[in-house]
């Protein structure tokens, strides 16, 4: 799934987040998005999800300009191909972790007979075997982030958007999460777009980096 930003400008009232942003993310890419706080990292994720509209320009996902979609259901179809790890988790508070993952699978129309085994699979992948029956309020920040990753992975997405997924994790768990994302990227050619402040990851991994807050975009 190709993602293209064609001269995208985003303003929040009088505040300009970015102007005429142009970028292209190819299928199978692993991209770090970095930049200072307020540089528009989360805004970029929200634009890809069509959660917000650009002030001008086009955000193209899978060849479709999101702000010119004729059929309103198109955006739902696109979202079903994207797994998201939200910065603020966005887990439903009165559903357990496995129910949250189950809901996500139900939304994409995953075969109901296979949902339980798929939940087990991703729960093991993020090492939450002993926490899956708990509610979000009963988990730590790090566990919530892993639960969120499990939900994103469960739908076998074409793209994973991870908004500061390591922000609440200790270094060991953070590297573990990066390892999982790398594996997914290499094994299934899933596009990974991850926002982060952590320069260790960026410097240690040979991946594409998009720096926001500056005019130029770097490729490492």
């Amino acid at each position, binding site marked *: 799934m190709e993602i293209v930003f064609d001269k995208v400008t985003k303003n929040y009232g009088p505040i300009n987040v970015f102007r005429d942003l142009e970028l292209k993310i190819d299928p199978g890419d692993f991209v770090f998005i970095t930049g200072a706080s307020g540089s528009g990292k989360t805004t970029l994720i929200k634009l890809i999800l069509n959660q917000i509209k650009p002030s001008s320009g086009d955000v193209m996902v899978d060849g479709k300009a999101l702000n010119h979609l004729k059929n309103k259901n198109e955006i*739902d179809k696109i*979202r079903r*191909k994207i797994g998201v790890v939200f910065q603020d988790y*966005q*887990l439903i508070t009165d559903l357990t972790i496995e*129910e949250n993952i*189950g809901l996500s699978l139900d939304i994409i129309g995953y075969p109901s007979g296979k949902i339980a085994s798929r939940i087990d699979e991703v729960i093991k992948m993020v090492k939450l075997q002993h926490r899956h029956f708990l509610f979000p309020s009963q988990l730590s920040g790090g566990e919530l982030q892993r639960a969120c990753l499990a939900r994103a992975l469960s739908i076998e997405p074409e793209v994973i958007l991870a908004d500061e997924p390591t922000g609440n994790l200790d270094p060991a768990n953070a590297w573990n999460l990066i390892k999982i994302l790398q594996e997914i990227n290499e094994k299934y050619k899933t596009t990974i777009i991850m926002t982060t402040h952590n320069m260790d990851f960026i410097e240690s991994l040979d991946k594409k980096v998009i720096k926001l807050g500056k005019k130029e975009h770097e490729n490492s």
Partner: protein
Amino acid sequence: MKILKLTFHHIRRSPFQSMVAFFTVFTCFFILNSFIFVNRGLSNVLNYFETKPEITIFLKDGLDEATVKSVGNTLATYPGIKEIRFISKDKALSLYKEMNKDNPLLTEMVTASILPASFEVSTFNPKVLEVIAQKFSSQTEIVDEIIYQKDIIQSLLTWTKIIRSSGIALISLFITIAFIVIFTLIGMKITNRKDEIKISRLLGASKFYVKKPFLLEGMIYGLTGSLFGFILSFSVIYYLRDTINFFFQPIIFVPSLTIFEPLLLLAEIFIGIFIGLSASWLGARRYIKW
């Protein structure tokens, strides 16, 4: 997660709100069935009188046999007469005793002398009754009293009309209340679950997908309210059936169960579901903006 599971999860989360919706629909259908029952009963009463055009002429005491016979002969000259029955004082007593055989207190003091003899005349054409009534009401030396069904039917028709109109008005009011209650309740639930809906939408859920549990919830209120309203009202009616029918005898005010009841149940369930679905659909349309 299965849609039904999610819907019951919503219902369990706010049990008192759900109970209000259920009881409003339940009350609506309980009242509806009560009016259907009274209306059917009155129709049976009306039908009884309309299909048996009859006039009863009570005779004065002490009339000789020739006079009684001449009354009978005069009655026989009218066209369209179906049957003329003479009820002597003794026959009247035996009928009275038969009617009150379960209540000896009502029979022990009564003798044939206090009951009047009478002619019961039934016709094929109710209009003949009017002519007979006019003719005999002027013969005060022979006739003690005339009981003529026209007045009863007129009175019954008036009551049926009043009950039917007030029933329609009351049921319309309750349907409106049930609709507004479900609409408001679904609106409140959507507002309470705003975050959940937004998250589901971000995960790719269609608008219909997020609306489904609310539509199903409305349908459940309609289904359960109408079903239990029917079951309770008909249980009460059929529990009291013998007592009611005894009171109205010989008319069958509450008939035996027929195909009508299951059909009525199906119709009411359909109406209940329709009310619940339309109210929740409007609620979901009005409140789900994301």
